[in-house]
């Protein structure tokens, strides 16, 4: 399957499988139905009781033991359980059988921001309350961010390059870009790429609240995540995972796989500006966007749709709105975070999956809770109901703390 490097660098990379575990549901179909219905998922979270902010979006009814077996679920932090369930779905969706593939040619690239946050927190509580002999040894194979990709490899016999990338809230998008490049370079024949996050532990949630980053719309939980709305006041933390199976187009066609879409462009940059605030000029984000467009060989006016980062914070949505206005030519914009909340490191992968579904089905989900567009944001944002989309090019933005930006260009098959 290995081809000369020169031709590989222009090789198209196809998305042949999707797997989703999000507050909008477990499984691709359940997700797509709820996201297209614009039905929000935020509520008050019992586990966060007593914190300044208790709003969160959890995966409803996730039973790791039922899905993975009790022996596996007992050992694995929720963050890894999400990754396994999404990866299994994606591989099955691609029509691939790990029992028969050449595992050495299968890579795993996942994104994550916080690792096993709950495991870290439990280990620390045990240390304080019971001393060092009370600390679970499993904390050290649950807490570190790299472990999600390791567990997916063990579960699916994926023995090629295996890594987790961390670019905060851009991690999922970065993982897909890095994974795509492993196919373009000829390093792998199949890449399981995506991201996972289970951040709803008290320590990180207290810290996010202290930053002032979280919505405090406690009187209206379902309406708390409201990207681009004039009354938005912060993001809602969410959990979940999105996994995509990537293959070179020729390989996918040769085995008769269904190609859902192509990942034709990837761009990344750093603001080099501030720990948490985006560069108000948007210059860093613009570099990532323009790099992705050039990588895909498309012009700004070719972009028909943007799945925005759209976190529902004042600053992000205004800066991103200005960026889209400045660089692109009136694309149809949505932020699916109105439904799902913000799954941090997993958001980019979840939204890449939604973007694939958007170009595949030519339907843009609405931005849930968008009642009155911020007058400072001059964009065509889909409101209330899903809107048909002409065939064409879409982009998905992700911008992380640390000023880390990543953009994907997704094209219809």
């Amino acid at each position, binding site marked *: 399957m290995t081809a000369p490097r020169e031709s590989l660098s222009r090789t198209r990379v196809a998305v042949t499988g999707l797997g989703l575990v999000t507050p909008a549901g477990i499984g691709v179909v359940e997700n797509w139905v709820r996201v297209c219905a614009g039905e929000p998922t935020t509520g008050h979270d019992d586990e966060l009781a007593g914190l300044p902010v208790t709003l969160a979006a959890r995966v409803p009814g996730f039973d790791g033991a039922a899905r993975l077996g*009790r*022996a596996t679920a*007992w*050992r694995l932090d929720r963050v890894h359980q999400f990754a396994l369930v999404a990866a299994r779905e994606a591989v099955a969706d691609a029509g691939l059988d790990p029992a028969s593939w050449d595992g050495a040619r299968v890579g795993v690239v996942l994104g994550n921001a916080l690792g096993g946050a709950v495991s870290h927190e439990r280990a620390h509580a045990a240390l304080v309350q019971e001393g060092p002999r009370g600390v*679970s*040894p*499993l904390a050290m194979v649950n807490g570190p961010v790299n472990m999600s990709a390791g567990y997916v490899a063990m579960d699916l016999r994926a023995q090629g390059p295996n890594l987790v990338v961390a670019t905060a809230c851009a991690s999922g998008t970065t993982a897909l870009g890095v994974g795509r490049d492993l196919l373009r370079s000829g390093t792998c024949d199949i890449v399981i790429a995506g991201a996972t996050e289970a951040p709803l532990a008290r320590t990180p949630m207290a810290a996010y609240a202290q930053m002032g980053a979280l919505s405090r719309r406690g009187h209206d939980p379902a309406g708390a995540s409201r990207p681009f709305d004039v009354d938005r006041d912060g993001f809602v933390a969410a959990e979940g995972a999105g996994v995509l199976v990537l293959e070179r187009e020729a390989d996918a066609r040769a085995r008769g796989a269904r190609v859902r879409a192509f990942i034709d462009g990837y761009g990344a940059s750093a603001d080099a500006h501030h720990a948490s605030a985006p560069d108000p000029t948007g210059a860093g984000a613009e570099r990532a966007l323009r790099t992705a467009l050039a990588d895909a060989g498309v012009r700004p006016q070719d972009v028909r749709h943007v799945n925005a980062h759209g976190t529902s914070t004042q600053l992000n949505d205004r800066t991103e709105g200005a960026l889209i206005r400045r660089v692109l030519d009136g694309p149809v914009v949505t932020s699916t975070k109105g439904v799902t909340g913000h799954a941090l490191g997993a958001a980019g992968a979840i939204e890449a999956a939604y973007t694939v579904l958007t170009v595949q089905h030519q339907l843009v989900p609405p931005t849930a809770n968008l009642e009155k567009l911020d007058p400072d944001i001059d964009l065509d944002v889909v409101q209330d109901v899903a809107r048909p989309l002409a065939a064409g090019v879409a982009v998905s933005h992700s911008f992380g703390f640390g000023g880390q930006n990543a953009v994907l260009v997704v094209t219809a098959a």
Partner: protein
Amino acid sequence: MKESTFTQLAGVIEDKLGVPADEIHEDTVLEDISVDSLALIELTLVLQKHFGVSIASDRVSPEDTVGDLVAVVDVALRQAPATRQAS
């Protein structure tokens, strides 16, 4: 009547690992029911809380049997009867 150590231990293993209690026997080897070295330490932490005693995890290894683990727990229970608080 209080359940035997074995019965309680089998119950904990069924609860945590999903191995049906009626498939757990004194001669069941721990690693055959997915209890590797890390899981064994975790399991002893769970058993410490369950029995309310300090259990030496280095006295048993994954190659040992459920019966061996029962013996270690029983030693701990005999050494610290006053703190016993089986649930």
